[in-house]
């Protein structure tokens, strides 16, 4: 029997990372599920036991170089060369740009951008030497289209789109495939516990407060009616890891795909004008009670 291919998943304690780790394990991959805080491993352990699969859990904080090196070296000792890396760990930050502090943006970039780069940097040499490997980067529809109250988050996800595209060209030369998986809105902890509301976002002194609160209500409605599940994203990651010729980009969720298609089809910048106009009109109406 072929030894199962080892895949390291970051941010596997909840949400898309957890669903991906479980799904890959069910599909026969040897999964190294990593997370910043091992005390949050219970849900993953419980689900793995329920599904009857074994998942190895390692501590890895993408913002801590030493923890990355230690996790990657443990993974290599146990499994040899990693077959796949799923860069999933990510955080959110919500608030109108004027209300978001510099340190909040930087801390977001540490995880979403520099963290992804650091883990990739730690894993790429072994894949290059082996002449094979798959690197999957989870971005977001916010990495393709900007949105109010998430300028820093969108910037970080756009950055990953640019990074991933560049890396895909480079890595292909040494036999490594890179894929960007771009999920629509999926109801996970990122819209609850990990929403990352900026300190100044709801400040009574903010000129954007009313618009922000209305926009968040609107966002909550979108989250509540989201048709895309974490499982859909996990399947897309599996496809990126198993397809013979993996696609560079894969959008998960019909509404996100429709939005992107609308932008492709509408002439000039008509899409941008309609999109901005609609969002701003909605942000001027209705009560200011925030959700979440």
């Amino acid at each position: 029997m072929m030894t199962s291919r080892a895949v390291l998943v970051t941010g596997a304690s909840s949400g898309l990372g957890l669903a991906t780790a479980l799904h890959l394990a069910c599909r026969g991959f040897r999964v190294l599920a990593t997370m910043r805080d091992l005390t949050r491993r219970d849900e993953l352990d419980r689900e793995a036991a329920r599904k009857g699969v074994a998942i190895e859990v390692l501590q890895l904080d993408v913002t801590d170089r030493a923890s990355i090196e230690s996790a990657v070296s443990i993974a290599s000792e146990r499994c040899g060369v990693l077959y796949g890396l799923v860069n999933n760990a990510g955080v959110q930050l919500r608030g109108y740009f004027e209300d978001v502090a510099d340190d909040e943006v930087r801390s977001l970039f540490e995880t979403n951008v520099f963290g992804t780069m650091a883990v990739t940097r730690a894993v790429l040499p072994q894949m290059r030497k082996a002449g094979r490997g798959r690197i999957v980067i989870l971005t977001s529809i916010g990495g393709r289209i900007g949105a109010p109250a998430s300028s820093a988050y969108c910037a970080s996800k756009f950055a990953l789109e640019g990074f991933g595209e560049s890396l895909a060209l480079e890595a292909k030369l040494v036999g490594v495939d890179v894929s960007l998986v771009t999920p629509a809105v999926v109801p996970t902890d990122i819209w609850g516990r990990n929403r990352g509301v900026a300190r100044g976002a709801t400040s009574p002194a903010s000129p954007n407060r009313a618009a922000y609160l209305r926009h968040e209500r609107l966002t909550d409605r979108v989250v509540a009616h989201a048709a895309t599940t974490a499982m859909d994203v996990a399947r897309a990651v599996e496809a990126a890891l198993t397809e013979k010729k993996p696609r560079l980009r894969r959008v998960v969720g019909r509404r996100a795909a429709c939005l992107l298609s609308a932008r492709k089809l509408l002439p000039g910048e008509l899409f941008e004008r309609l999109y901005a106009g609609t969002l701003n009109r909605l942000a001027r109406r209705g009560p200011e009670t925030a959700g979440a």
Partner: protein
Amino acid sequence: MLRHETRSVLVTGAGTGFGRSTALLLAARGFRVYGTIEPGQREDLEKAALERGVTLRIVEADVRHRDSVASAIATVVGESGGIFGLVNNAGVGIRGFFEDLSEGEIRRAFEVNFFGVLAATRAVLPHMRAQGEGRIVMMSSAGGRMAALTLSGYCSGKFAVEGFSESLAIETAPFGIKVSVIEPGVVKTPHFTVNRGLAKAALDPTSPYRVWFHRHERMVDAILETGRITPEDVARTVHRALTARRPRLRYVVGWRPKLLIALRRRLPDTWLDRAYVRETLRLVSDPASAEASDSEASAFAPS
């Protein structure tokens, strides 16, 4: 509304390249222009302004330091009674295959190309909001729409500016503040010569990517030599973004990036991505270009 003759614009990184051409052109067309420079660039810029017969207000400032940018903007507002435009032009290059880029090199590029943009934007917004009008122009790059080989550290920063700008444009529209992004292709400026930003390890003969890197650098040199866009074209585009009644969100400068970006924007992702990856790899693996370049580094690589 500010009267036209008092419309002041701050251009960051006005010492060289696009920033310098933009500052001079805007001044020639009647704006009250402030340009931030690095130490040592003043004399040269003053001479250029004199030759052109325009007045530039030169401020030494460093976008990497929040206080430095904020104080430059306070100067503009203090002297002019407001600030109509901000041109976030300052930027640096970083070239090398990702494995050859150190974390520090990428972070240094982000400090200028991304965090510097945020710092300047943050400092002008309250003034523009109070005025009820303003224009913020970002100097992005075609590399902010299509990422290229050897540019993971650069394109990621420019993509970030694109995402930031799209979001910001929606947030600031109700206040009369318009955001535009300029996306020039490859233009021969100091950005590609003295400031090319070659990563240290990319020049290391033991780099596993050495051959491809040098070939690719030669390809870029060839494009630089045949390119017809000038910094003046970019400056005129910035002027359009500052003066159009309804400025576009994006302006691509140059036919090559216009074509490529239009294809990306209009074609299904999969088609364009596959063709783009295939074509890039074909070019960089081409034995003809290999012969010319395997032994030689780019004309701009230090020997």
